[in-house]
Structure formats: C-alpha cells, structure tokens
C-alpha cells in the first residue's frame, strides 16, 4: 500500500487536483467509464462498418455517367457534410420518429437510429475519400479492364476498387477517429456512451474528475490510431 496510496492521498489533499483529477474518484469511476467506452466503440465501429459500403456506393454514383446518380450522390454528400452531426441526430431521433410514429415501435430505436445517423454521416465523408481514391488510379487500368471485356461495374469492382483500398486506408482511419470522437454527441440524446457516462458520474460524485477520465480513455483509443495512420502513410510513400 503505502507508497502509491500516500501519493494518491497527498494529491487528493490539493484542492485543484481533488476537483479536477482526483485519483481516488478516477479509480472508483473507471469501471463505469469503461462501460461507456464499450458503447462508444460499438457505435463508432457499427457506424463506420455501414458507412464504408454506403460511401463506396455514393462514390461510384458520383463517378457514374448517369446524371441522376451523380445528382443523388451530390445531394447526399452535400447534405451530410454541410450540416452538423448534432442536427442530423436531432432529425433522425426526434423529428423523424414524430413524423413517422411507427419508428418509435422499433425496439431500441434510439440505438439503431444513432447507428444509422452515424453511418449515413460518415458515409458522406467516406464517399469523398473513395472518389479521390478511385480518381487517383491511372485511367489505363480501366481501359485495360474494358478491353478485356469487363463491364464498367465489374471493372470497378475487380480492378479499380481493390487498388484504391491501400490508398484510402489512411484517410479512412482518420475518418474513423473523427467518428469515434463524434459519438460524444450521442450524449445529447441521453445515450450512455463515454461522454454521457462521464456527465452522470460527475454529478453523482459532485466532482468533475470523470471528465478527465473520459478524456484519457478517448486518447487511449485515438492516439494508437493516429500513430497507425502515420505509419501507413510512411509505408505508402515508400512503395509509391
């Protein structure tokens, strides 16, 4: 005991530290914060998981010869990149269920609605990432595939898109990091992800240390990912 405990006690005796980052309180709320972090990760992973195919589809639409598809994609991307995620969450989880009450009958509709809004939001950003990725592939690749008899879509699927994955992995990871942090907005809908958990715990303990705890947990998730992006970009720079 002893040494660590006495340091912890000493720190807690300093008022500012006690209020802001009390070791004792942090230790006691940490398991609860981790519960919230699980939900945060679940939302981010599911959002990205559905956002990627959605974004890929929007990117292919954007590059299509058909004007209708291009227009659809533009409207989608402009709307979700041009409005705050918080407003999108309000629309998805407050406005739509009022307009269409049947939505409220879906069990856990706050959860699924949250995932859906995150997915369509991240899909809009992913679309731009894939569009840039696809456009960066030399046009000779499409020509070679077409000359072999591939249809446009098959050429996209078997030849072009597989080549974009290596190039889009760093920006996609960045997008995931952004989404992970953005899940904190779900607290506005009383979803008990990490940020909301910290708010509850802080009023329960009458102490703001849980917010510091939440920040530390966010950092523990994002810093390895940003390092990973840096590493991938370096490798990509070498191989190109």
């Amino acid at each position: 005991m002893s040494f660590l405990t006495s340091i912890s006690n000493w720190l807690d005796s300093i008022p500012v530290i006690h209020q802001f980052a009390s070791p004792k309180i942090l230790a006691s709320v940490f398991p609860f914060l981790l519960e919230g972090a699980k939900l945060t990760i679940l939302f981010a992973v599911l959002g990205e998981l559905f956002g990627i195919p959605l974004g890929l589809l929007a990117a292919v639409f954007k590059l299509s010869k058909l004007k209708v598809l291009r227009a659809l994609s533009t409207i989608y991307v402009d709307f979700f990149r041009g409005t705050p995620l918080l407003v999108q969450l309000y629309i998805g989880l407050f406005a739509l269920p009022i307009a269409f009450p049947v939505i409220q009958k879906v069990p856990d509709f706050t959860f699924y609605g949250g995932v859906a809004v995150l997915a369509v939001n991240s899909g809009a950003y992913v679309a731009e990432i894939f569009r840039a990725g696809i456009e960066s592939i030399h046009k000779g690749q499409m020509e070679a595939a077409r000359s072999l008899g591939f249809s446009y879509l098959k050429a996209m699927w078997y030849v072009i898109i597989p080549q974009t994955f290596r190039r889009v992995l760093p920006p996609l990871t960045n997008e995931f990091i952004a989404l992970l942090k953005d899940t904190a907005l779900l607290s506005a809908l009383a979803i008990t992800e990490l940020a909301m958990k910290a708010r509850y715990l802080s009023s329960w303990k009458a102490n703001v240390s849980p917010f510091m705890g939440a920040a530390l947990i966010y950092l523990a998730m994002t810093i390895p990912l940003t390092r990973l992006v840096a590493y991938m970009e370096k490798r990509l720079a070498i191989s190109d």
Partner: protein
Amino acid sequence: MIELVDVHKYFGHNEVLKGIDLKVKQGEVIVVIGPSGSGKSTMLRCINKLEDVTKGHIYIDGQDITDPKNDINALRQKVGMVFQSFNLFPHLTALQNVTIAPVRVQKVDRRQAEDKGRELLARVGLAGKEDFFPSKLSGGQQQRVAIARALAMEPEVMLFDEVTSALDPELVKEVLDVMKNLALGGMTMVCVTHEMGFGREVGTRAIFMDEGVIMEENIPSELFAHPRNKRTQAFLGKVLAQ
C-alpha cells in the same frame, strides 16, 4: 473480320480521323506507321471502342460496334489489346493478371483458367514468374504478361499500340519475338509501331497514316523501300536517318 467504313473522330473541334476505310482479313498482320499525332493510336482505340467514333462504322465479324444495340463487352472479347504503358493490374500477380478476365468475364472455371494461364505465360517465355507482382518484373516481362493476358480471352484479333515504345532498347527484342511467334501462328494483328524491321519481317501489309488519313498502303517491303507518297518518303527518310 474487321472493317472500318468512313471513320471520323473529333476531339472537340479537332478532327483526328478524317475518313478511314480499312479492311482487315483473317490472318493478316497490318503494320501501321506514321508520325505522332497522325491518328494511328486513335484508330486502334476506336476499333475496340475505347474511343467513340464521331461518324462512320466499324464492323467486327459483321457486327457494328458503333450500334449501341450491340453488346460491346461481348465484342471486345474478340479483340485483344496491348498498350504502350502495359497497364497490368498491379494488385495481382502475373498469373492472376492473365486469369482474371477469363474467370470474371467468361466464367471459366478457375483451375482451368490457371492451367491455361500457366501455358500462356510459358508461351511468352515467363514460366516460373507466375507468382510475381508486376512491380517485380522488368518492362519487357510486364509487356509479355500483358500480351498473355489479352491472349487468355482467345481473341480473334490482337491490337498492339506502340507496345515497345516505353521499353529500354535491350528489352524490345523479347517483346517483338513474342509478337513474331504470334504472327507465325496465324493470329490476325494490327500493330501501330515504329519498329520497321519487325514490320518488314512479319507484316503482310503496311499502312502509312498522316493527318488522320491513310496516305499509302502496300506490302511492307515495298512501302518501306519504295514509298510513292511524298509524305511517306519524308517520314521514312527521317526515321531511317536516325
């Protein structure tokens, strides 16, 4: 087998092909020469619709590829194309480059496609390189993989668009040798090339193009040795002086 009838092609206001008429019969090896910007490559690219013709018709086995009702993907399978810049798929190995189209487009059984792919790679002198990625192959090797890739679709005619122009001089011969064997095997070929020696040796007909028209055509030895057209003479004079 291939017939071009009064083919015109505009890029914007710029008329690149000004009425091309050409018939390619089975087994012919046509050598197309001409200065850069003469429309040779554009003509070749029109034959498998990588470029849309502005006016005129192109028939492959009697089917008009300029008619939107005809299935261009099916017609393209009859026409193999090899590019100046190889355009191998960099994420696939040599063997996968050769098998992807038969497997994905023609729905050939993968095993069968791989057996044939190995055979084709051996035929272009690349046995043992099956699992190499393009980045690990020399330019000449890459171009030979590209030829094998086109052959895998069992085309009736092969188009070669300056396929040795991007190669280091010492790698040109290995690619030309593959093309020579192909010609000797009876493949119908249209080759845009600057390799006069190759043209004289394997070509059954040579065409000189300039300013979007076919200026002169003849058997290669005649066209190269006794060009009648002034422009042909000037062009050959410059090329042979190099």
